[in-house]
């Protein structure tokens, strides 16, 4: 039977149906922001500028994907920002101190980062404390460890350069290369970002794990009652965050060669912001990976668009806040209209 034949349903156009989806409803805000800056900022529409905006969006977007998944699963990760730095520091310092091929460092870093993610998740499910306080704890601890270890090992607050070490060029190809197509400079992070969005969307919508993520965030007790392994799902989500932090961390290392130990603080909020603008609920159970990408793109466009528009930089944050709020309002309004349309 086709549901549209039911006399209890009013017919609804395809456009409205699409706009009601969390993935697509949020795109309206992105289009609006794009059009707006195309008009007010001369240089915004240039191909080269697009490359810059996409790069800025991708560096947030890569992390916004797992953070969105985690939020759908009902949890936060405040340590995501510094974890990126930790991951970069581990590869760099391990390779340097052991005079090893940088790939060894990269591998060790993956293990360490995943272990930290697992630590977050296990502590969460064991202690049943709110994830805010758990990951706040790891956030502070990692911040301290980043600084403490770097000073202990390098003697300064940043790592030593590893650009002349074995394996650096190949690792750089993977994590920090860029292609120039015409006048557009496309960073490899954009490919990583899109790849992650596709994989995350597939996982969310077409696998059992995805079903479990929605359930764990939507109603953890009910999910447990019908046999969903909620604890394992949440630990897995934290490890997914860690995995993406590892990618971001390696990008940081291989594109800037030297890592400052104090970096990453505060970035966790950018990821959450991207996820929320893209329609993820703070309370869990609702959202999408594509939405997080749209959110990251809105953030990236606004953030850089204000620079392209050459507005007075003293008011930068004001414009940023106002634009983000407007874009999100527009998203929400469109989605509501689309849903409510009889």
């Amino acid at each position: 039977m086709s549901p549209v034949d039911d006399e209890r349903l009013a017919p609804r156009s395809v456009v409205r149906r699409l706009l009601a989806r969390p993935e697509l409803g949020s795109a309206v805000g992105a289009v609006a922001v794009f059009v707006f800056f195309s008009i007010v900022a001369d240089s915004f529409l240039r191909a080269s500028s697009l490359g810059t905006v996409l790069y800025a969006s991708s560096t947030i977007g890569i992390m916004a994907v797992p953070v969105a998944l985690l939020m759908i699963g009902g949890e936060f990760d405040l340590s995501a920002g510094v974890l990126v730095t930790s991951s970069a520091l581990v590869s760099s310092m391990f390779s340097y101190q052991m005079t090893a091929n940088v790939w060894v460092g990269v591998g060790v870093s993956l293990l360490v980062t995943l272990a930290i993610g697992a630590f977050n998740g296990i502590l969460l499910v064991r202690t049943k404390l709110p994830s805010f306080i758990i990951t706040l704890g790891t956030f502070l601890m990692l911040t301290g460890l980043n600084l403490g270890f770097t000073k202990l090992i390098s003697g300064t607050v940043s790592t030593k350069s590893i650009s002349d070490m074995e394996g650096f060029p190949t690792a750089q190809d993977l994590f920090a290369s860029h292609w120039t197509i015409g006048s557009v400079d496309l960073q490899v992070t954009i490919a990583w970002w899109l790849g992650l969005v596709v994989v995350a969307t597939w996982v969310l919508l077409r696998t059992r794990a995805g079903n479990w993520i929605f359930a764990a965030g939507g109603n953890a007790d009910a999910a447990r009652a019908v046999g969903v392994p909620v604890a394992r799902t949440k630990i897995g989500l934290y490890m997914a965050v860690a995995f993406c932090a590892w990618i971001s961390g390696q990008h940081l290392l291989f594109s800037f060669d030297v890592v400052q130990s104090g970096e990453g603080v505060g970035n966790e909020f950018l990821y959450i912001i991207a996820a929320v603008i893209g329609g993820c609920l703070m309370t869990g159970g609702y959202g999408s990976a594509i939405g997080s990408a749209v959110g990251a793109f809105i953030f990236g466009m606004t953030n850089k668009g204000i620079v392209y528009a050459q507005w007075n930089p003293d008011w930068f944050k004001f414009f940023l806040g106002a634009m983000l709020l407007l874009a999100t309002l527009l998203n929400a309004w469109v989605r509501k209209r689309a849903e409510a349309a009889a």
Partner: protein
Amino acid sequence: SSTGGKRAEDRAKRAAKANSSAVNTPHWTFAMVTHSGAGDTFWDIVQSGAKQAADKDNIKFLYSNSDQANEQSQLVQAAIDQHVDGLVVTLAKPDAMKAVVLKAEKAGIPVITINSGSQESKEFGTLGHIGQDETIAGRAVGDELNKRGKKHALCVLHEQGNVGHEQRCAGAKATFSGKMDNLYVDGTNMPDVLSAIQAKLQADKSIDSVVTLGAPFAATAVKAADQAGSSAEVDTFDLNAQVASSLKAGTLGFAVDQQPYLQGYEAIDLLWLYRYNANTLGGGQPVLTGPQIVTKDDADALLAYTKRGTR
């Protein structure tokens, strides 16, 4: 009072250490409270200077920092509570520190100010000030840019609302004869720094020089200029190993050094001198540690020092 336990053990250790250090004055405790954010290269070098002096002078050195005025004053208060024998503070936000600095002096703790706040330092009745006015450093940059014939400069601030950063840019703007724009970036997010500078250079092709306010951002600015296809020269405040080698390689124009190592070292040493010998320095005037313009020619000599983290 007691003859055993942890304290006695500490005393013995101190005695042993005293023998190994250059001086055998009592084991004083000096505290340094700065307005630095966490993990800042500049303040790291200040600290290593201070530590070096502390080791030589048989001093126990305590360091704490906060970029919030309120918090910084509480940290000074904590140092007073610990009855330290000497205090080094920065006066980036002088009004916030006034009350607590006076309190320290009232409690008989000698105070030396470093880095910023040369004017207020005297007003607060401290022993002296060692450092450089951020505005003066900025002015030096403006002059140097003029000398290099620059017309349109970009000042990259990596912490919004930071007084010192504003003073640096304002100083540069004051003496620079061309046009100068500010750009705020998020200093804890290197990709953001990169893309923001890149965007600015793409938006305004007439920019011919970029001034970063911290050494770690210089390399990123170079990369941004490169990717934006801009030929702007990158200059920076402060030094580190990367900056020194970039200067040498010619990818950076110049750097303005204010010798942070010296600020830390001298402050502790002066406190020691004061306690030991009632010496003061500067004759009521601030002792300036900069600004010193470092270019390709000087870079070679400095490279070794930057590598070990003392320049």
